[in-house]
Protein backbone atom coordinates (compact mmCIF):
# COMPACT_ATOMS: atom_id res chain seq x y z
CA UNK A 1 0.00 0.00 0.00
CA UNK A 2 1.20 3.48 -0.77
CA UNK A 3 0.64 5.98 1.96
CA UNK A 4 -0.27 9.29 0.37
CA UNK A 5 -0.98 11.16 3.53
CA UNK A 6 1.24 11.77 6.50
CA UNK A 7 -0.08 9.91 9.55
CA UNK A 8 -1.04 12.13 12.44
CA UNK A 9 0.15 9.56 14.98
CA UNK A 10 3.60 8.05 15.15
CA UNK A 11 2.12 5.08 16.99
CA UNK A 12 0.96 1.89 15.34
CA UNK A 13 -2.09 1.65 17.58
CA UNK A 14 -4.36 4.08 19.41
CA UNK A 15 -1.98 5.66 21.88
CA UNK A 16 -2.09 9.20 23.16
CA UNK A 17 0.97 10.93 24.46
CA UNK A 18 0.60 13.90 26.81
CA UNK A 19 4.11 15.02 25.94
CA UNK A 20 2.99 15.40 22.33
CA UNK A 21 -0.51 16.74 22.74
CA UNK A 22 -2.09 17.74 26.03
CA UNK A 23 -5.58 18.92 25.25
CA UNK A 24 -7.34 21.70 27.11
CA UNK A 25 -10.85 23.06 26.79
CA UNK A 26 -11.74 26.71 26.99
CA UNK A 27 -14.06 26.04 29.91
CA UNK A 28 -13.77 29.67 30.95
CA UNK A 29 -16.17 30.45 28.13
CA UNK A 30 -18.83 28.12 29.62
CA UNK A 31 -19.48 30.51 32.46
CA UNK A 32 -22.69 32.48 32.79
CA UNK A 33 -21.85 33.77 36.25
CA UNK A 34 -18.51 34.70 37.64
CA UNK A 35 -17.33 34.28 41.25
CA UNK A 36 -16.17 37.57 42.65
CA UNK A 37 -14.27 37.34 45.91
CA UNK A 38 -14.56 40.03 48.52
CA UNK A 39 -10.95 40.17 49.71
CA UNK A 40 -11.94 41.91 52.92
CA UNK A 41 -14.45 39.24 53.86
CA UNK A 42 -12.19 36.34 52.81
CA UNK A 43 -10.57 34.78 55.85
CA UNK A 44 -8.34 32.54 53.78
CA UNK A 45 -9.93 29.33 55.05
CA UNK A 46 -9.40 27.64 51.67
CA UNK A 47 -12.73 25.81 51.51
CA UNK A 48 -13.56 27.41 48.15
CA UNK A 49 -10.27 26.13 46.73
CA UNK A 50 -10.80 22.72 48.25
CA UNK A 51 -14.27 22.15 46.85
CA UNK A 52 -13.74 23.83 43.48
CA UNK A 53 -14.32 21.00 40.97
CA UNK A 54 -11.82 22.29 38.37
CA UNK A 55 -9.45 23.15 41.26
CA UNK A 56 -8.93 26.56 39.73
CA UNK A 57 -9.02 28.83 42.79
CA UNK A 58 -5.71 30.62 42.86
CA UNK A 59 -4.00 30.93 46.21
CA UNK A 60 -3.07 34.62 46.35
CA UNK A 61 -1.33 34.40 49.70
CA UNK A 62 -4.02 35.98 51.85
CA UNK A 63 -7.10 35.34 49.77
CA UNK A 64 -8.35 33.14 46.94
CA UNK A 65 -9.56 34.14 43.48
CA UNK A 66 -10.75 32.06 40.53
CA UNK A 67 -8.62 31.41 37.45
CA UNK A 68 -11.15 32.69 34.96
CA UNK A 69 -9.50 30.77 32.10
CA UNK A 70 -10.99 27.59 33.49
CA UNK A 71 -13.69 28.53 36.01
CA UNK A 72 -16.99 27.09 34.73
CA UNK A 73 -18.99 29.30 37.05
CA UNK A 74 -20.67 26.44 38.90
CA UNK A 75 -20.91 28.50 42.08
CA UNK A 76 -19.77 25.80 44.51
CA UNK A 77 -17.13 28.16 45.90
CA UNK A 78 -19.77 30.78 46.69
CA UNK A 79 -22.11 28.20 48.22
CA UNK A 80 -19.41 26.63 50.37
CA UNK A 81 -17.81 29.88 51.56
CA UNK A 82 -18.67 30.03 55.26
CA UNK A 83 -18.45 33.83 55.27
CA UNK A 84 -20.43 34.51 52.12
CA UNK A 85 -17.40 36.29 50.73
CA UNK A 86 -17.96 35.11 47.16
CA UNK A 87 -20.69 36.53 44.96
CA UNK A 88 -21.81 35.00 41.68
CA UNK A 89 -22.10 37.92 39.29
CA UNK A 90 -23.69 37.50 35.84
CA UNK A 91 -21.06 37.53 33.09
CA UNK A 92 -23.11 40.16 31.24
CA UNK A 93 -21.91 42.71 33.72
CA UNK A 94 -18.37 42.13 32.51
CA UNK A 95 -19.30 42.19 28.82
CA UNK A 96 -17.42 45.39 28.16
CA UNK A 97 -14.19 43.76 29.36
CA UNK A 98 -14.33 41.78 26.12
CA UNK A 99 -11.29 39.70 25.43
CA UNK A 100 -9.73 40.64 28.78
CA UNK A 101 -11.37 37.74 30.60
Amino acid at each position, binding site marked *: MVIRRKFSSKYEAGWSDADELLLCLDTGSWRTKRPVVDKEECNY*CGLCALYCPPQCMLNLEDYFAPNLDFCKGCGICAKECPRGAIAMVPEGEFADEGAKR
Partner: protein
Amino acid sequence: MTQKKKKLPRVFEYFRDEDQFAGGVAFCAGCPLELTLRILSKVLGRETIIVGTPSCSAPVLYGQNIGTWHRLPYYSCLMTGVASSATGLVRYYRKIGKDVTVVCFTGDGCAADVGFQPLSGAAERNENFIYICYDNEGYMNTGVQRSSTTPFGASTTTTPVGVARRGKEMSAKNLPLIMAMHRVPYVATATMSHLEDFIKKLLKAKEKKYEGFVYIHVFSPCPVGWGIESDSAIQVCRMAVRTNYFPLWEAERGRFHLTHTVATPRPVTEYTKLIRKFRHLSEEELARLQEEVNSNFAFLHHLAEFETPKAC
Protein backbone atom coordinates in the same frame (compact mmCIF):
# COMPACT_ATOMS: atom_id res chain seq x y z
CA MET B 1 -5.25 42.64 55.13
CA THR B 2 -2.26 42.84 57.35
CA GLN B 3 -2.62 39.67 59.33
CA LYS B 4 -3.08 36.11 58.08
CA LYS B 5 -6.65 35.46 58.97
CA LYS B 6 -6.79 31.69 59.17
CA LYS B 7 -4.65 28.63 58.68
CA LEU B 8 -5.48 26.52 55.65
CA PRO B 9 -7.25 23.21 56.36
CA ARG B 10 -5.01 20.19 56.89
CA VAL B 11 -6.40 18.62 53.74
CA PHE B 12 -4.05 20.71 51.66
CA GLU B 13 -1.11 18.95 53.26
CA TYR B 14 -2.12 15.67 51.69
CA PHE B 15 -1.49 16.96 48.19
CA ARG B 16 1.81 15.45 47.15
CA ASP B 17 1.69 15.97 43.42
CA GLU B 18 0.36 18.55 41.00
CA ASP B 19 -3.05 18.21 39.47
CA GLN B 20 -2.34 15.95 36.48
CA PHE B 21 -5.31 17.21 34.50
CA ALA B 22 -5.49 20.04 32.00
CA GLY B 23 -7.12 23.20 33.34
CA GLY B 24 -10.21 22.80 31.19
CA VAL B 25 -11.77 19.38 30.86
CA ALA B 26 -15.21 18.22 29.76
CA PHE B 27 -17.08 17.70 33.01
CA CYS B 28 -20.38 19.49 33.55
CA ALA B 29 -20.11 22.62 35.64
CA GLY B 30 -20.42 21.72 39.30
CA CYS B 31 -19.92 17.97 38.86
CA PRO B 32 -18.19 16.46 41.90
CA LEU B 33 -16.66 13.82 39.62
CA GLU B 34 -14.17 16.40 38.42
CA LEU B 35 -13.22 17.12 42.00
CA THR B 36 -12.81 13.42 42.75
CA LEU B 37 -10.41 12.91 39.87
CA ARG B 38 -8.32 16.01 40.45
CA ILE B 39 -7.96 15.22 44.15
CA LEU B 40 -7.12 11.64 43.29
CA SER B 41 -4.30 12.70 40.99
CA LYS B 42 -2.93 15.10 43.63
CA VAL B 43 -3.03 12.49 46.36
CA LEU B 44 -1.99 9.31 44.54
CA GLY B 45 0.49 10.98 42.25
CA ARG B 46 1.54 10.53 38.68
CA GLU B 47 2.73 6.92 39.01
CA THR B 48 -0.93 5.91 39.04
CA ILE B 49 -2.35 4.08 36.04
CA ILE B 50 -6.04 4.68 35.42
CA VAL B 51 -8.28 1.99 33.95
CA GLY B 52 -11.78 2.88 32.94
CA THR B 53 -14.59 2.74 30.50
CA PRO B 54 -17.17 4.58 28.48
CA SER B 55 -18.81 6.78 31.14
CA CYS B 56 -19.08 10.39 32.22
CA SER B 57 -15.39 10.27 33.04
CA ALA B 58 -14.40 8.81 29.67
CA PRO B 59 -14.20 12.03 27.63
CA VAL B 60 -11.71 13.31 30.17
CA LEU B 61 -9.84 10.19 31.18
CA TYR B 62 -9.37 8.57 27.82
CA GLY B 63 -8.14 11.14 25.39
CA GLN B 64 -9.34 12.03 21.98
CA ASN B 65 -7.43 10.47 19.14
CA ILE B 66 -3.79 11.35 19.64
CA GLY B 67 -4.46 13.91 22.35
CA THR B 68 -5.08 13.45 26.06
CA TRP B 69 -6.50 15.59 28.85
CA HIS B 70 -4.09 14.57 31.58
CA ARG B 71 -0.63 13.21 32.22
CA LEU B 72 -1.57 9.94 33.91
CA PRO B 73 -1.02 6.75 31.96
CA TYR B 74 -4.37 5.16 31.23
CA TYR B 75 -5.95 2.09 29.72
CA SER B 76 -9.42 2.53 28.38
CA CYS B 77 -11.57 -0.51 27.92
CA LEU B 78 -15.10 -1.73 27.71
CA MET B 79 -17.51 -1.72 30.62
CA THR B 80 -17.28 -5.50 30.72
CA GLY B 81 -13.51 -5.41 31.05
CA VAL B 82 -12.37 -2.93 33.69
CA ALA B 83 -11.48 -5.11 36.65
CA SER B 84 -10.13 -7.78 34.31
CA SER B 85 -7.96 -5.38 32.33
CA ALA B 86 -6.59 -4.02 35.60
CA THR B 87 -5.89 -7.61 36.60
CA GLY B 88 -3.88 -8.09 33.40
CA LEU B 89 -1.84 -5.00 34.16
CA VAL B 90 -1.09 -5.69 37.82
CA ARG B 91 -0.29 -9.32 37.16
CA TYR B 92 2.24 -8.41 34.51
CA TYR B 93 3.79 -5.68 36.66
CA ARG B 94 3.97 -8.13 39.55
CA LYS B 95 5.70 -10.64 37.27
CA ILE B 96 8.39 -8.12 36.38
CA GLY B 97 8.58 -6.79 39.94
CA LYS B 98 7.26 -3.29 39.27
CA ASP B 99 5.40 -1.43 42.02
CA VAL B 100 2.44 0.27 40.39
CA THR B 101 -0.81 1.76 41.65
CA VAL B 102 -3.51 0.72 39.22
CA VAL B 103 -6.82 2.47 39.81
CA CYS B 104 -10.04 1.45 38.11
CA PHE B 105 -12.35 4.40 37.86
CA THR B 106 -15.88 3.65 36.74
CA GLY B 107 -19.44 4.61 37.33
CA ASP B 108 -22.04 2.58 39.18
CA GLY B 109 -23.52 1.21 35.95
CA CYS B 110 -20.26 -0.51 35.16
CA ALA B 111 -19.44 -1.58 38.70
CA ALA B 112 -22.87 -2.75 39.80
CA ASP B 113 -24.30 -3.94 36.50
CA VAL B 114 -22.50 -4.88 33.31
CA GLY B 115 -18.99 -4.91 34.79
CA PHE B 116 -19.93 -6.61 38.04
CA GLN B 117 -18.81 -10.10 37.08
CA PRO B 118 -15.15 -9.17 36.53
CA LEU B 119 -15.29 -6.83 39.56
CA SER B 120 -16.49 -9.63 41.82
CA GLY B 121 -14.02 -12.02 40.19
CA ALA B 122 -11.08 -9.71 40.78
CA ALA B 123 -12.17 -9.14 44.38
CA GLU B 124 -12.44 -12.86 45.00
CA ARG B 125 -8.97 -13.38 43.51
CA ASN B 126 -7.78 -10.51 45.70
CA GLU B 127 -5.99 -8.73 42.86
CA ASN B 128 -3.67 -5.91 43.90
CA PHE B 129 -5.44 -2.83 42.64
CA ILE B 130 -7.86 -0.11 43.68
CA TYR B 131 -11.34 0.03 42.23
CA ILE B 132 -13.12 3.34 42.62
CA CYS B 133 -16.78 3.45 41.74
CA TYR B 134 -18.33 6.89 41.53
CA ASP B 135 -21.98 6.35 42.19
CA ASN B 136 -24.24 8.83 40.47
CA GLU B 137 -27.08 6.36 40.79
CA GLY B 138 -27.65 5.72 37.13
CA TYR B 139 -26.36 5.87 33.58
CA MET B 140 -25.72 9.57 33.40
CA ASN B 141 -23.39 9.62 30.40
CA THR B 142 -26.00 8.08 28.13
CA GLY B 143 -28.68 10.42 29.44
CA VAL B 144 -29.94 9.41 32.88
CA GLN B 145 -31.17 5.83 32.71
CA ARG B 146 -31.72 3.75 35.80
CA SER B 147 -29.05 1.39 37.06
CA SER B 148 -29.17 -1.12 39.88
CA THR B 149 -27.94 1.55 42.30
CA THR B 150 -30.72 3.98 41.41
CA PRO B 151 -32.70 4.44 44.63
CA PHE B 152 -36.34 3.66 45.20
CA GLY B 153 -38.65 6.25 43.75
CA ALA B 154 -36.09 8.06 41.63
CA SER B 155 -37.26 9.38 38.31
CA THR B 156 -34.97 8.54 35.39
CA THR B 157 -35.55 8.33 31.64
CA THR B 158 -36.22 4.60 31.95
CA THR B 159 -38.20 4.89 35.18
CA PRO B 160 -40.21 7.97 34.34
CA VAL B 161 -43.02 9.35 36.41
CA GLY B 162 -46.44 9.10 34.79
CA VAL B 163 -49.91 7.80 35.40
CA ALA B 164 -48.95 4.15 35.36
CA ARG B 165 -45.56 4.43 37.02
CA ARG B 166 -43.90 6.60 39.61
CA GLY B 167 -40.16 6.25 39.26
CA LYS B 168 -38.09 3.21 40.19
CA GLU B 169 -40.07 0.58 42.10
CA MET B 170 -37.10 -1.34 43.45
CA SER B 171 -34.52 -0.44 46.02
CA ALA B 172 -30.90 0.27 45.21
CA LYS B 173 -28.34 -2.48 45.24
CA ASN B 174 -25.92 -1.84 48.09
CA LEU B 175 -22.74 -2.35 46.13
CA PRO B 176 -20.20 -1.31 48.79
CA LEU B 177 -21.71 -3.84 51.20
CA ILE B 178 -21.61 -6.53 48.55
CA MET B 179 -17.97 -5.73 47.91
CA ALA B 180 -17.19 -5.80 51.63
CA MET B 181 -18.73 -9.27 51.78
CA HIS B 182 -15.89 -10.41 49.50
CA ARG B 183 -13.81 -9.87 52.66
CA VAL B 184 -11.10 -8.07 50.73
CA PRO B 185 -8.40 -6.06 52.52
CA TYR B 186 -10.20 -2.75 52.21
CA VAL B 187 -13.60 -1.39 51.26
CA ALA B 188 -14.71 2.16 51.98
CA THR B 189 -17.38 4.68 51.15
CA ALA B 190 -16.62 8.33 50.56
CA THR B 191 -18.08 11.53 49.23
CA MET B 192 -16.75 14.91 48.24
CA SER B 193 -18.26 16.89 51.11
CA HIS B 194 -15.97 14.95 53.45
CA LEU B 195 -12.70 15.44 51.66
CA GLU B 196 -10.28 14.60 54.41
CA ASP B 197 -12.14 11.36 54.98
CA PHE B 198 -11.88 10.60 51.26
CA ILE B 199 -8.19 11.45 51.09
CA LYS B 200 -7.33 9.34 54.12
CA LYS B 201 -9.18 6.46 52.54
CA LEU B 202 -7.28 6.95 49.28
CA LEU B 203 -3.98 6.85 51.14
CA LYS B 204 -5.06 3.80 53.07
CA ALA B 205 -6.12 2.22 49.78
CA LYS B 206 -2.67 2.81 48.36
CA GLU B 207 -1.16 0.87 51.26
CA LYS B 208 -3.84 -1.79 51.42
CA LYS B 209 -3.51 -2.64 47.76
CA TYR B 210 -0.25 -4.42 48.66
CA GLU B 211 -2.47 -6.84 50.57
CA GLY B 212 -4.90 -7.17 47.73
CA PHE B 213 -8.14 -5.82 46.44
CA VAL B 214 -9.37 -2.39 47.45
CA TYR B 215 -12.78 -0.92 46.69
CA ILE B 216 -13.90 2.65 47.30
CA HIS B 217 -17.48 3.67 46.64
CA VAL B 218 -17.80 7.40 46.06
CA PHE B 219 -21.25 8.96 46.31
CA SER B 220 -21.33 11.42 43.44
CA PRO B 221 -24.48 13.46 42.77
CA CYS B 222 -25.11 14.36 39.15
CA PRO B 223 -26.27 17.98 38.85
CA VAL B 224 -27.86 17.38 35.44
CA GLY B 225 -29.34 13.92 35.92
CA TRP B 226 -30.68 14.45 39.41
CA GLY B 227 -31.94 17.94 38.89
CA ILE B 228 -29.84 19.92 41.33
CA GLU B 229 -28.33 23.34 40.94
CA SER B 230 -24.78 23.38 39.69
CA ASP B 231 -23.60 24.95 42.95
CA SER B 232 -25.29 22.37 45.18
CA ALA B 233 -23.50 19.07 44.66
CA ILE B 234 -21.32 19.40 47.75
CA GLN B 235 -24.34 20.39 49.82
CA VAL B 236 -26.19 17.30 48.55
CA CYS B 237 -23.21 15.10 49.44
CA ARG B 238 -23.14 16.55 52.91
CA MET B 239 -26.87 16.08 53.41
CA ALA B 240 -26.64 12.47 52.21
CA VAL B 241 -24.19 11.87 55.03
CA ARG B 242 -26.17 13.81 57.62
CA THR B 243 -29.35 11.88 56.88
CA ASN B 244 -27.48 8.54 56.91
CA TYR B 245 -28.65 8.10 53.33
CA PHE B 246 -24.99 7.56 52.52
CA PRO B 247 -23.03 6.65 55.65
CA LEU B 248 -19.26 6.85 55.63
CA TRP B 249 -17.58 3.65 56.67
CA GLU B 250 -14.72 1.32 55.92
CA ALA B 251 -14.30 -2.42 56.20
CA GLU B 252 -11.05 -4.32 56.47
CA ARG B 253 -11.46 -7.96 55.52
CA GLY B 254 -15.09 -7.77 56.54
CA ARG B 255 -14.51 -5.86 59.78
CA PHE B 256 -16.64 -2.74 59.65
CA HIS B 257 -15.93 0.65 61.10
CA LEU B 258 -17.93 3.87 60.76
CA THR B 259 -15.51 6.67 59.88
CA HIS B 260 -18.04 9.41 60.51
CA THR B 261 -20.96 9.21 62.89
CA VAL B 262 -23.95 11.50 62.79
CA ALA B 263 -25.18 12.37 66.25
CA THR B 264 -28.72 13.23 65.24
CA PRO B 265 -29.55 12.10 61.73
CA ARG B 266 -31.74 14.47 59.78
CA PRO B 267 -34.89 13.11 58.14
CA VAL B 268 -34.28 11.91 54.62
CA THR B 269 -36.69 14.52 53.31
CA GLU B 270 -34.05 17.16 54.00
CA TYR B 271 -31.95 15.32 51.45
CA THR B 272 -34.66 14.50 48.90
CA LYS B 273 -36.02 18.03 48.82
CA LEU B 274 -32.72 19.17 47.31
CA ILE B 275 -33.13 16.82 44.37
CA ARG B 276 -35.64 17.01 41.53
CA LYS B 277 -35.63 13.27 40.79
CA PHE B 278 -37.45 12.76 44.12
CA ARG B 279 -39.82 15.68 43.72
CA HIS B 280 -42.87 13.57 42.86
CA LEU B 281 -42.59 11.30 45.91
CA SER B 282 -45.66 11.09 48.13
CA GLU B 283 -45.46 11.01 51.90
CA GLU B 284 -45.88 7.23 51.84
CA GLU B 285 -43.12 6.86 49.32
CA LEU B 286 -40.86 9.12 51.31
CA ALA B 287 -41.68 7.08 54.37
CA ARG B 288 -40.58 3.95 52.55
CA LEU B 289 -37.34 5.65 51.55
CA GLN B 290 -36.82 6.73 55.15
CA GLU B 291 -37.48 3.17 56.27
CA GLU B 292 -34.87 1.91 53.82
CA VAL B 293 -32.34 4.45 55.07
CA ASN B 294 -33.07 3.41 58.66
CA SER B 295 -32.80 -0.29 58.03
CA ASN B 296 -29.67 0.03 55.88
CA PHE B 297 -28.02 2.06 58.57
CA ALA B 298 -29.13 -0.27 61.33
CA PHE B 299 -27.67 -3.17 59.42
CA LEU B 300 -24.41 -1.30 58.93
CA HIS B 301 -24.38 -0.36 62.58
CA HIS B 302 -24.74 -3.99 63.56
CA LEU B 303 -21.87 -4.88 61.26
CA ALA B 304 -19.71 -2.20 62.83
CA GLU B 305 -20.54 -3.53 66.32
CA PHE B 306 -20.05 -7.11 65.30
CA GLU B 307 -17.18 -9.00 66.86
CA THR B 308 -16.06 -12.34 65.52
CA PRO B 309 -16.65 -14.88 68.31
CA LYS B 310 -13.41 -16.31 69.59
CA ALA B 311 -12.87 -19.95 68.79
CA CYS B 312 -13.51 -22.22 71.74
